[in-house]
């Protein structure tokens, strides 16, 4: 089998995932997954609970080592990079974790300003200013000195989003950015994601179950099913997909090929 070479990557492609496999014991989560993300594009990954969406983005940012396959970021193959090199690559990324993953020993402002503190020479005052600005972007005010344990679920999510965007990264990975938010706040976050793309040309991968948000923020939508991306297309293409699995999922029907276990 010919190996995919670097020269095959189109200049427009920022993230390329080829034949990605990842298993946990006998649980074969990803089974030869392919995905390409173009520069400045917002791709939404949808798929059932436990299909491996979080595993996919953790592989992309190097938190999980794939069993097989390759991942290219900006033309560089990072799949088997060591910690030091991964560290450099990760500076291009911001990641919103599904459950926030806020540092619970630090107040909100230190959480959001963590990257700035670690990787820049900014003074605490300057960091606090940037933090306040990022918090305002996610619709939060006056929470700087609260501890994560004092926040509600939705607030945690938004603080975590603020932390992800604080360093103004090139690539953003959102793991369910709107889950647990009220409909209005969810829309604020959708708008923010769109703005980040339009104003800062951020490339992003967003995981979501919320189809409304998927249609709104996605330039393209990719459906993950049984370890592979079974369909990629613009929101309209996905809405009109002929694939029954996709149709069942986006319409949220309990009857269909997914539940019949095909």
């Amino acid at each position, binding site marked *: 089998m010919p190996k995919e070479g670097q020269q095959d990557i189109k200049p427009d492609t920022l993230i390329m995932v080829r034949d990605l496999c990842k298993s946990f014991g006998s649980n074969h989560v990803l089974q030869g997954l392919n995905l390409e993300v173009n520069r400045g594009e917002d791709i939404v990954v949808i798929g059932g609970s436990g299909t491996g969406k979080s595993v996919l983005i*953790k592989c992309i*940012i*190097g*938190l999980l080592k794939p069993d097989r396959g390759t991942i290219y970021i900006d033309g560089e193959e990072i799949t088997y990079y060591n*910690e030091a090199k*991964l*560290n*450099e690559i*990760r*500076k291009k*990324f911001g*990641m919103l*974790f599904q*459950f926030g*993953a*806020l*540092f*619970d*020993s630090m107040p909100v402002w230190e959480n959001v300003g*963590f*990257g700035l503190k*670690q*990787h820049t020479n900014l003074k605490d005052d300057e960091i606090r200013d940037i933090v306040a600005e990022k918090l305002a972007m996610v619709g939060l005010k006056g929470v700087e000195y609260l501890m994560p344990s004092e926040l509600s679920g939705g607030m945690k999510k938004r603080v975590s989003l603020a*932390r992800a965007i604080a360093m103004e990264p090139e690539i953003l990975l959102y793991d369910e950015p709107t889950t647990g938010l009220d409909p209005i706040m969810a829309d604020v976050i959708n708008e923010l994601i769109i703005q980040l793309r339009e104003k800062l040309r951020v490339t992003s991968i967003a995981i979501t179950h919320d189809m409304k948000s998927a249609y709104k923020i996605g330039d393209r939508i990719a459906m993950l099913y049984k370890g592979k991306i079974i369909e990629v297309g613009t929101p309209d293409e996905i809405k009109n997909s002929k694939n029954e699995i996709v149709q069942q999922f986006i319409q949220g029907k309990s009857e269909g090929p997914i539940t019949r276990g095909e």
Partner: protein
Amino acid sequence: MVKFFDFLGSLVIRFIEESGRIMLLFIKTLMWIFRPPLNLKNIVRQMEEVGVNSIPVVLIMSIFTGMVLALQSYTAFRRFNAEAFIGTVVALSMVRELGPVLSGLMVSGRVGAAMAAELGTMQVTEQIDALYALATNPIKFLIVPRFLAALFVMPVLVILADIIGIIGGYLVSVILLGTNSTIYIKRTWDYMELEDIYTGLLKACIFGIIIATISCYQGFSTRGGAEGVGKATTRAVVLSSLIILISNYFIAALMF
């Protein structure tokens, strides 16, 4: 029978694997210590946690240990009229053995458990992944400060334990049992050699390293929610206590 050997074999393999991983973490930690910058704020916070907050337990432990040592050696020594040497026995036992070992066990129970629980919780709530994602090495950020704090604070605690233990012995022997105060103090000093103190402090440093390395390792390798954190905490305390006791013998044998 085959099953038994299978089981034994897998146990041995797991033991070797685990020791290897702990050694690896230890080496990585050493490497990160020498890569600037050092996060002084975190180190100071950990020193407070490991050191200052351990002082009460260490004090109580050492004063009662010194007291019981004096009481027991009085009972024994009176039989051959050697009461004058109670001071020597208390001081040497405290400085060479009981000070470091008991402090080590106390600190592994208090601090080791806390380290494993905190880092374990961070592991299962993806906070350690979040550190990686923020391009920060968790060994540098989390383990190095704990390691340095334990390494530097343990000897201080042990010196404190030694002094308080000796005072405890003095109180029982002189005030309670009425032996001669001047002789007690003189016999404490006369037979104490610098080497005794060195050995004790060397042990303290090594125990500090053992506690920090094992507890941080257990924290980082925690899997599976609250239950996992509980298991990691238990393992951290049991394992570091055992290794303290075992290595204590070998250090003593080497120094003999």
